[in-house]
Structures are given as C-alpha cells and as structure tokens.
C-alpha cells in the first residue's frame, strides 16, 4: 500500500501508467469500436485528417481508416511486446537459475551460449529468425525473445550465486528438500525482483523491435501493425506525411509509458526498501 501511495506521488509514474492504461483501453476496445476489418477499404483514399467525422485521422492510400488501424495496431503492439518480454524473462530466469545452481562445466557452457547470443545484434537475430521461420505473430514473439533472454539470465545467475550461500538455503537442505524444489521454491522467488526490474526495458525493446520488423515488411501480414502503417505511409511521404507520423506518435507514447511506469515502480520499491 505504501509503495502504491509513493507511486501516485510521482507525476512521471502517474503519466506513465495513464499512457499505458490508454493504450490498453485502445487495444481492448478495438473490436467493439471498430468491428469491421481494419485492413478493408472504409472510404475514399488519402482523406486528410480532421476533415470528416467518419475518418477523424483520415484514410491511407487504399482508403483504410487510420484511426481503426491505430486501435487494432495497439492490440498487436501490446500483445507482441508483453508476450515476447514474458517469454524472455521466463526463459532467461530458468536458464540463469540452472547455470547458477549447476555450477562447473554446465555453468561455463551456458554462460558461453549467453555470450554468443549477446554478441549477435538482437535485431539481426530477429530478422534472421523471422526470415527463416516465416512472418507470423508467434515467430515474431519468438524472434524477439531470442535476443532478449540474456539480460534476465545473467541477473538471475548472479542473484542465485549470492543467494545459494545464505542460511535459509542451507536450512532447506538440512530438512531434506530436493535440490530442484530448493531452486524453484526457495531461491528463485528471492532472485526475481532484480530480474523483474528489467522488465520495462525488455517490454519497451520488444515493442520497438516488433515495429522495426513490421516496418521492414516482416510482421504478421494478416494483422495491422504500427510499423506496417508507417511503412505504408512512406510511399506517399511527400503528399501525405500524416500517414507515417500518426502511428509513430502512438508508438512513442506507448514506449514512453512503459519506461515511465517502470522507472516509477523501481523507484517506489527502492524507497520502500531503504526505509525498511
């Protein structure tokens, strides 16, 4: 409760959560407010924004409604961002925990694999994976997670290494708990907070990589994406720059919301810890 009230006192954190709530509302309300297929033609092509009530943000080259695209694009962006970050954090913490507990050769091997993944630029890795596996929502999520799990893995391992020498772990061993049970029930929950502190950066990175992939035409072709809308608008950048600019603003606001909210949570919980 204290953390929550501290959170509400920081204007940055409040702004961040408001932005995220707005984006989440857009994503959830998209099928209710715009039940028609957002990829279908809705009106005359290249209607400028703020001209008719029917198409407040105008229409694109093919006559598709930009506002409907924004709402449906929020679904894709948030879904991919959250799913990829969740996959990366779960996989990373498990691998890091395994490395930290196993020690020796297994630890060394896992850490060299982590090094290798960190040496290849995450975006190139995602590009290669999607180009081989074919663009779909699941492959995009997997491709992004593939480049993002190393951070959580390293932090989880470092936490495990310091935690496993503590008394409560020795106690669990003495009462005869199975090593896997100790790892998952005693140590991992204590190692998680620092890993979760990374989550806002990972979600933001995932949203940005998804946008870049779909900008290059490697997003799921059956879904509206903000990156895809920006790429679409690029063909008429001279005559109708709004088509690229509007979805980009949505993208910036989403990522900014994630950063601000994440920073707010970390600061509020750090303050709680220092007072305790």
């Amino acid at each position: 409760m204290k953390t929550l009230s501290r959170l509400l006192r920081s204007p940055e954190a409040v702004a961040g959560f408001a932005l995220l709530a707005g984006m989440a509302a857009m994503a959830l309300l998209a099928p209710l407010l715009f039940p028609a297929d957002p990829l279908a033609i809705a009106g005359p092509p290249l209607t400028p924004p703020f001209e008719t009530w029917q198409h407040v943000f105008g229409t694109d080259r093919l006559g598709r409604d930009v506002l409907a695209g924004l709402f449906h694009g929020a679904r894709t962006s948030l879904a991919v961002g959250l799913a990829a970050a969740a996959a990366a954090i779960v996989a990373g913490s498990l691998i890091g925990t395994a490395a930290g507990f196993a020690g020796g050769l297994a630890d060394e091997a896992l850490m060299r694999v982590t090094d290798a993944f960190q040496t290849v630029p995450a975006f190139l890795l995602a590009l290669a994976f999607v180009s081989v596996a074919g663009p779909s929502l699941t492959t995009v999520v997997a491709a992004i997670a593939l480049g993002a799990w190393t951070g959580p893995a390293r932090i989880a391992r470092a936490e495990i290494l310091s935690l496993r020498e503590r008394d409560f772990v020795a106690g669990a061993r003495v009462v005869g708990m199975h090593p896997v049970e100790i790892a998952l029930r005693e140590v991992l929950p204590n190692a998680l907070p620092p890993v979760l502190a990374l989550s806002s950066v990972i979600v933001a990175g995932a949203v940005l990589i998804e946008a870049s992939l779909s900008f290059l035409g490697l997003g799921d072709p059956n879904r509206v994406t903000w990156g895809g809308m920006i790429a679409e608008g690029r063909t008429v950048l001279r005559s109708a720059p709004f088509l690229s600019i509007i979805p980009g603003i949505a993208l910036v606001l989403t990522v900014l919301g994630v950063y601000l909210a994440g920073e707010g949570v970390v600061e509020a919980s750090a303050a709680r810890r220092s007072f305790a």
Partner: protein
Amino acid sequence: MIRIRTLILRRLVGAIPVLAIVSVGGFFLLEAAPGDAVDAYVAGIGGDAQMIDELRQAWGLDRSAAARLGFYLWSLAHLDLGQSVTFSRPVLDVVLERLPNTLLLMGSATALSFSVGSLLGLFAGSRPGNFRDRFLSIGSLALYAVPGFWLGLVLTVIFAVQLRWLPVSGIETIASGKQGVERGLDVARHLVLPVASLGFIYLALYLRVMRAGMAEAWRMDFVLAARARGVPRRRSAVRHVARNALLPLVTMLGLQSAAMLGGSVVIESLFSVPGLGRLAQEAVSARDTPLLLGIILTSAVMVILINLVVDCLYALLDPRVGASEASA
C-alpha cells in the same frame, strides 16, 4: 603494457568459443531455411536435374548433416563464408565491400551521441534534482522511446521534403564525378540524416549514465573535501565529478555497439545507404541465407573487436583494470 597485452590475449582466446557457438547456431539456421543453396541458385538461373545433382555434390550438400557442419566450420576457419546466391560472388567479398559504409555511419553516430550525450549529462548532473536536470532526464527518456526509423522519416519530411536542405537517400550523388574534398562533403551531406536518426536515440543513454554517475560522485569524500576546501561548485563539477562519471560511459561504448549495428539495418534500409545493414535487408528479401549468415558472423566479429578496443581504452584510462590479471 604487459597488462594490456595480457588483456588482449585473454579476450581473443575467450572469443573463440563464442564465435564457434555463433557459427554452429548459424548452421542450424541455414538448415532450417526452406530449400538449400542449390535450390536458390537454380531458381535464379535455371538448370536440369543432372546439374542440380552435380552442384549438390560439388558443394557437399549430398552428405550427412554432421559432415556438412564439419565442412561448414572447416571453410569458416579458412575465412570462406560461402557463395552469395543473389550476387553470385563470395559472401566475404560482398560483405567487405559494404563494411566501410556501415563503419562510417556507426562511427559518426557514436561520436554524435557520445559527445552530445555526455555534455547534456554534465548539465543535468551538475545540480541533480533541479529543474534543468528533471527536464533533461524526462526529455532523454522521451527521446529514447522514439524508434530510429520513425525519427528518420520525420527528419526526412522536415529537412529533405519541406526545406530541401538535404538529400533523401543514398551515400553520394550518383555519377557526379566529384573527387577529393568535394566528394567527401557530398558523402557528409548524405550522411547527416542517417547519422542523426541513429545517433540521437543513443544520446539519451549516454546522458542518463553520465547523470547517474555524477549524482553518485557528488556524495564521494574527495568531492566533499574539495567543496570544503572552497573549490567553487562549478569547477569541482567539471574537474572532480564529471571526470569520475566519464569512465562508465566508455563501457557503454562497447555495450551499445551491438544495438547500434542492429539499428543500422533499419536506418540503412530507410536511407538506402549501401552498408552491411541494408545488405542484411536485401539478403532477407532475396532469401539469400548464406549471405545473411555471413553478415551475422561479421557483425559478431565486429562486436567482439569493438569491445576489445573499448576494454583496452578502459585499461589505459584506469590503471586498476587488468592489473590483477597480469600479475596472476
């Protein structure tokens, strides 16, 4: 100097297993791709069944997966990255041809983000918590939330389409016949927008690291001592606090190299800069997996080398680094 030589040696030895893992991973990526190199080759120029069989034999594609992996790693050890399907030339030649443009782009973008970022970080960190600091901190966060390709498009609309100050794409004016300094200026004009779109985003990172380092350094004993001696706040901000905060920024240089290489894929594609990143995008759209793999391996080598240089720089700046390793 023994200290630095030991450091280089250790890093190079450590790079071998990492590169081996990247290579094996890349091999499986090649295997997972639909069709093999011969299919892609024949799709481009045509050929009958007999020719396909002969090519498979010549390229060793008729053997088992383990034998192919061995053959692949053996060729890599001889710096043979295979044949590019779209260019019908060795992958290494194509990659090396494009590398200088990417290095130029990345170098300029890094210089921009490092210099402007650390300067703004100095402003923000000289009085942590005041209005200027809060403004710069939130502004940098907002900047960091901007996707590079979108910033590039917005800058294009303003400076190339509306104001017509700068060219929209390419690395130089085609067939301009310019030489020497004039050609250099032409390339510089073409690089302004790509460098700005790539560099401005990472600027935020340097700003934040600098600011955080300074905020911490203000509480250190020697800074308090200097202030107590009567050293003016402004002077100790630069001479004591900022100098201490600069060291972590050098580490960021290495850490950011992989991210910037990834970012250059989109930026080079957007501005048609003929570099490694645009080559990656071309390889993807032409389904040229050997070329894509070659680019990934080259990027990994580049990231390792950049980090090596940064580590040496760090060791030169901070005599404590590597001292224990050399004496051990």
